[in-house]
Structures are given as C-alpha cells and as structure tokens.
C-alpha cells in the first residue's frame, strides 16, 4: 500500500467505516428480526393471493390496477437517486459527491429490484411470466419497460460494483490474518486481484467513467417508458405527451429526497458527521429544490392544459382529484409535498439538516400519494355510461406493500454489514485532492494522477 501524507485522515476514515462491519448492536439484530417478520408476513399475503387469485386485492374490472403498480412507479422513481448523484455528479466532477455515491448507487440497485418485482406480483398469472421472454412483442410498452429496467439493473449493479473493488481489496488485506475464513475468500473474490497499481487504477477510472456516461440515458429511458405504459392508453390523465419527462423529473425529485433520508440515517447511526457534512445536505437540497420547481411547473402545466379545455373525461378526473373523493390527498400532495418542502428548504432558520430531512420525508410521502393519484383516479373515471369505479386496498395489498418497504430497509441493513457504506478510497482521494489543488486540477483535466510524495 502507498504511504499517505493524510494517513491520519485515512486511518480515522477506515476505522469509522469498517467498525460497523465487525460489530453489531442488539438494536441492529432487533431491527433485522422485525424487518424479516414484516417480509415474512408479506410473503404469507402473497401466498394467499396466489391461492385465491387477485380477487384477494381491492382491484376490480374498472379500477384494474392498484397499489402494486403505485409501488412499482414509486420504487423505480427512487432508483433514480443513484444515477443522479453518482453519474451526473461524477460526470460534472462534483468532488463533494464522494461520501454519498455508494449509498446512492445502493438505493438504485435495491429500489429497482423491489420495484421490478411489483408488476410480477400484480400479474394474474405469475406462473406464466416466462411468456414475456418467449412470446414477447416489442410493440407493447410493457416490453420496453422490461428491456429498460433489466438494462438499468445490470448497469447499476456494475456501477455499484466497480467503485467497490478497491474497498474490497482493502477488506481482503485487513483480513489477511485469517486467510482461511470464508469472509476472506469472498472479499478476495470480489477484489478481483486489485493491487492498486497505476495501470489498474487507470482502467478502473476509465470503466467507471464509461459506466457513468452509459447509465444516464438508460436511467432516463427507464422512467420514460414506465410512464409510456400509462400514456400509450387513452385514459384521462394518462393520455399526455408530457408524461415521459413528468415521470423522469418526479423520479429524480423523489430520488434525491430518498438519498437525503438515507444519508441522514447512516450519518446518525454510523457517526459519519466528519464525512457527510451540512454541505452535502445543502448541496443536495439545491438539487432537490430545482427538481421540486420543475415538478411543480410540469404539474401545473399538465392540469392547466386539460382543465382549460374540460373534455368530458378529463373534467371528471379533475373534479375527482381537486374537489371530489381524492381532493384531500391531492391538496396534501400540493401543500405538503411541494409548497411546505419548498419553504423548508428556502427559508434558512433553525437547523439546516433537520429542515432538509423533514422536507425530504414529506416529499417522499407526498410522492407516493401522487403516484396513487396518477394511477387510481384515472381508472375510476367511467369510460362508459356508469358510475365512478371504487378502489379500497385490502389487507393483502397493504401487507405486500409493507413487506416491500421492509425488504428495502432490510437489504440496506444487510449490505451495510458486508460492504463499506462509504467509498473509502474515493473519499480518501478526494480529501487529498482538497489538500493539494494542483492534483485536483490534474484530475479534472483527465490527466493521470502523478504518483508523488
């Protein structure tokens, strides 16, 4: 290993990040057990659904999609956190991103995996899911989804793994004493012979750079085609040309909010105050505010353009949303998910991090509700001369939804025990760069880092 001038910083960093990997508190086990119980209960609910069919849900012939697809859109939305923070910030050389990238990429991978399960749970015949492979036709927007989401999952897994390699090597070297243990073997396997040679570093940087550029269009395509499943139909509210970008912005919006929440949690539990500072929250809150205003703008435009013309079905939808049964939730979304968070972020009074985290939690709750409002009321509007459709989720749907959220946290909890939650080598490197502006400039120009000191 190279001797480092900032060895002190690195030593502290390693011990802070690596300690939780070897020591687990009783609270941790309690949390894991609780989450496992929730996931288990959700699995039981799914078995009931398999046995009795989708009649165990609140869906019907009129409102034929429900909470499962709301969760699908929500989780796929959250998954955009990773791309934005990691890829866009990497491409733009935003140095402050380094302590946050690992968490963001992890959110992406976990959220896509859980999100992608949702439409399968929603299928009437999950036993025939392989039909999509053998009979799949590309004229269907569902196929676009599948291609896009699987590419995104693959891409994000690679993108999560590549920056992990030097950290895996670090773990391997630290465990060298117990060379026979299973842990050592796993870490050496994952480290793929990383010796931190200049050539290896060059290749890694290059690979990460390529992935960062590749993953941005894939990520945008994912939420675009998720919206296309809806906007390729003639339903009121869905039949919209702006839906692609509306969903993408919504995804980035809720994605940033999620990463802020995850950051705050790990900062507190893992004592990462030195690495994740107020600056990170502030910088992310600027991005959050930008996407908030974009989303507000698109929402405004979306409802104004249909509300001005008042086509019969759109009129029914707007009445349902703004004055009818869904009005409470709609105005909760507008006030609690857009106006209040904007105020919390913009007016700097009180503790910055607390304000931003509260805003993010509000945003994520409101965005889940917003996805519900995009899906269900559009389906409730009758297209034939009959009454509005009704939809009340049953215990099966609530259980599976709870299990999805529990699984999300559970995978995070387990991952955080196996892999360092902060990219040690990148943070250490960034710290050095901050020490020496000359090196920083060299790196930003894409020149190889001189091996000096």
């Amino acid at each position, binding site marked *: 290993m190279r001797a480092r001038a900032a060895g002190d910083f690195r030593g502290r960093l390693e011990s802070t990040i690596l300690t939780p990997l070897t020591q687990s508190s009783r609270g941790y086990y309690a949390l894991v057990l609780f989450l496992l119980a929730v996931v288990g209960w959700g699995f039981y609910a799914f078995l009931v659904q398999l046995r009795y069919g989708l009649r165990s849900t*609140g869906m019907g*012939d009129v409102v034929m999609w429900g909470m499962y697809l709301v969760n699908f859109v929500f989780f796929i939305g959250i998954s955009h956190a990773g791309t934005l923070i990691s890829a866009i910030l990497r491409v733009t050389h935003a140095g402050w991103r380094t302590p946050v990238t690992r968490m963001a990429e992890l959110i992406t991978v976990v959220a896509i995996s859980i999100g992608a399960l949702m439409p399968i749970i*929603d299928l009437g015949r999950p036993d025939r899911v392989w039909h999509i492979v053998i*009979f799949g036709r590309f004229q*269907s*927007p569902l196929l676009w989804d599948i291609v896009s989401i699987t590419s995104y999952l693959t891409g994000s897994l690679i993108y999560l793994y590549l920056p992990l390699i030097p950290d895996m090597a670090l773990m391997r070297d630290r465990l060298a004493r117990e060379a026979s243990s299973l842990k050592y073997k796993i870490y050496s396997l994952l480290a793929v012979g990383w010796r931190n040679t200049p050539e290896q570093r060059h290749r890694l940087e290059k690979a990460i750079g390529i992935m960062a550029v590749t993953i941005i269009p894939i990520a945008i395509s994912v939420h675009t085609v998720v919206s296309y499943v809806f906007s390729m139909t003639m339903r009121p509210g869905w039949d919209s040309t702006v839906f692609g970008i509306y969903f993408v912005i919504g995804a980035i919006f809720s994605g940033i909010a999620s990463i802020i929440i995850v950051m705050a949690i790990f900062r507190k539990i893992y004592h990462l105050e030195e690495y994740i500072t107020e600056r990170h929250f502030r910088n992310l809150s600027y991005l959050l505010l930008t996407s908030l205003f974009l989303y507000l703008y698109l929402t405004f435009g979306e409802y104004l353009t249909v509300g001005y013309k008042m086509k019969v079905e759109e009129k029914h939808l707007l009445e349902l949303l703004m004055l009818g049964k869904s009005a409470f939730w709609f105005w909760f979304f507008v006030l609690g998910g857009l106006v209040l968070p904007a105020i919390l972020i913009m007016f700097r009074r009180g503790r910055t991090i607390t304000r931003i985290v509260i805003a993010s939690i509000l945003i994520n709750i409101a965005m889940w509700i917003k996805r519900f409002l995009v899906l269900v009321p559009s389906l409730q509007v009758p297209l*034939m001369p009959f009454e509005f459709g009704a939809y009340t989720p*049953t215990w099966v749907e609530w259980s599976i939804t709870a299990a999805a959220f529990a699984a999300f946290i559970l995978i995070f909890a387990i991952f955080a025990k196996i892999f360092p939650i902060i990219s040690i080598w990148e943070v250490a490197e960034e710290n050095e760069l901050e020490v020496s502006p000359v090196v920083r400039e060299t790196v930003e120009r894409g020149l190889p880092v001189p091996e000096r000191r």
Partner: protein
Amino acid sequence: MGNKEKNLTRRQFIQRSVGAMGVGAVLLSPLVPVLNRPKTPVSPAKVEPAQKKTRNWTMVIDLKKCDGCVTIDQPAQCTQACIQAHFVPKGQQWIEVYEAELAGGGTFFMPTPCFQCENAPCVNVCPVAATYHNEDGVVLIDHRRCIGCRLCMAACPYQRRFFNWGTPELPPEAALAEYSPIYPVPAVKGTVIKCMFCAHMLQEGKLPLCVNGCPMKAIYIGDLNEDIATNGGEVVKLAKFLDENDAYRYKENLGTQPRVWYLPGHGQDFGRKPLDLRRAKPVFWPWGGEGDRLRPGVWPWKEPGNWTWQEGVK
C-alpha cells in the same frame, strides 16, 4: 467417425433407426386421432371447407328497437343469452346494456358488446400477443398465453374487457366444454376475457347468441365483404342499411374503428318513450355463486367468517 468408435456401422445405424421409427410409429398410432382432433367441435359447416371465405364481421344495433327489455319486464335478453351459453363468470357482462342520456334528459338503452376494433388498442399493447385479430377481424384472447397484466383493460376505451380475478364459479357442465379462443369456456383464472362475437357460432354458420336472444330483433350481424346482414328475421343490404339509418360508431373520434354500428333511437319501435322511468332489470347467473365481490380474510381457510364482502367494486 463417431459411429466406428461405438462399433456401429453405417448400415447398422440406418437399420436400427428405421426399426426404432417403425416401433415408435406403431406405439404412437393411437395418438393420431387425438392429434388430428379439430380445435373446435365438429360441425356441419366444417364439412365444406372449400367454401371458406375471409369474413369482415360487422354488427349493427338498432337502438330504435332496443327497449332494454323493459316492455317485456325481463332482464336484457341479449346479456342473459350470452351469460348462459358462455358460462360467463359472475359479475361480467360481455354484452352489457347501458342506459345512456339523450339530449333532452330522456334516456336510451345501449347494448354494448366488444366492438372488435380494427385498430384495437388492446391488441396493440399486449406484451405476449395473447390477444389478436383472427382472419375474420374478430379480436380473440388466447387464455393459455395471457399473463394477466391487464394492460389491455387499461387500453380499452370502452371498458369491454373483464378479468377473472379468482377461480371462476361455473356450473359443472362448463367443465365439459373444450376450450378454444373462439369459445373461451371454462374461463381461466387470472386472465382477461371478453365478448368474441360468438366466433364459434359464426364459424358454424349460426347467429351469435345475443342476436338470437334479442326478442326485439334489434341486433344484426353481417359481413361487410358480402355486404349483407341479418337479425335472424330479415336480411338487409349492409352498406345501404347503414347509410339509410344514419349509423354511427361509439367514440368514432378515437380512431379505433369499431366493428359495431349503432342506429340512433330509444326503443320507439316498441313504444318506449325517452322519459320512460323503467330501468333495465338486473341480469342473473342461474348457477349462483358469490361473484367476485367476496374477499379472503387474513385466515381465509376459516370460511365463511373470514371472507369479507367488498361493496362497490365492479
């Protein structure tokens, strides 16, 4: 070369292969009639396959004659005939009689089968080609292929598709029917189902069940290629009939090109007035069952206490 290694000459190889094929053919011969069995019940029409023509099936519903069966005080007979002949699962009405509003506040009855659109949104979005047009223009569903994603139901602008949310409750005789996409009986759990223009009847040269079932003879079925249609009583020249009666298609502006035409009216041919207050009587399922409204509770096997009635779900 491989044969030599196994001590098998070319001659032996050929002999044995032919022998094996012969034995196999003898053993499998009982399967021949099974494999040759037609997908649909053998019918007289099948005897003359030479007359097979491509049809352009079209339905015309004369609303002047449709009184929602209120004047005979019966549930809509088209729906009822359809339910009983196709063992339609409870809660689904493949042809449904809606009461729609006229300009002045009166109402008219509108029987609504699947419109078998030429530019069918449901066919466009199906991810596995489980729903498709047959050569006669009818939109069918292959319930052995459908994965139950319900994207077609979202796409249908007429809400004419239904889902088998649970195991359909059917009378025992439904199990005897031989399934085919043109006669989707018995209904398959977890798949989408709808009116298929009685393709099984048309194939045999018979009229669809709603056409036969309508006591007012309001429903015509015809072939645009042959330019002819019938309601079981009279035979009309289709194009002229459509023109002279100001035929229209529901939601024409969507561009779906339905194969079902309406002739405007409110049942006046049978004396029904627009302001008639009589509603259509609800249809019934002779074999009963709970329909799709009963939801399993948390411990569903502890019946019946643990099943809940879900109101308002259609």
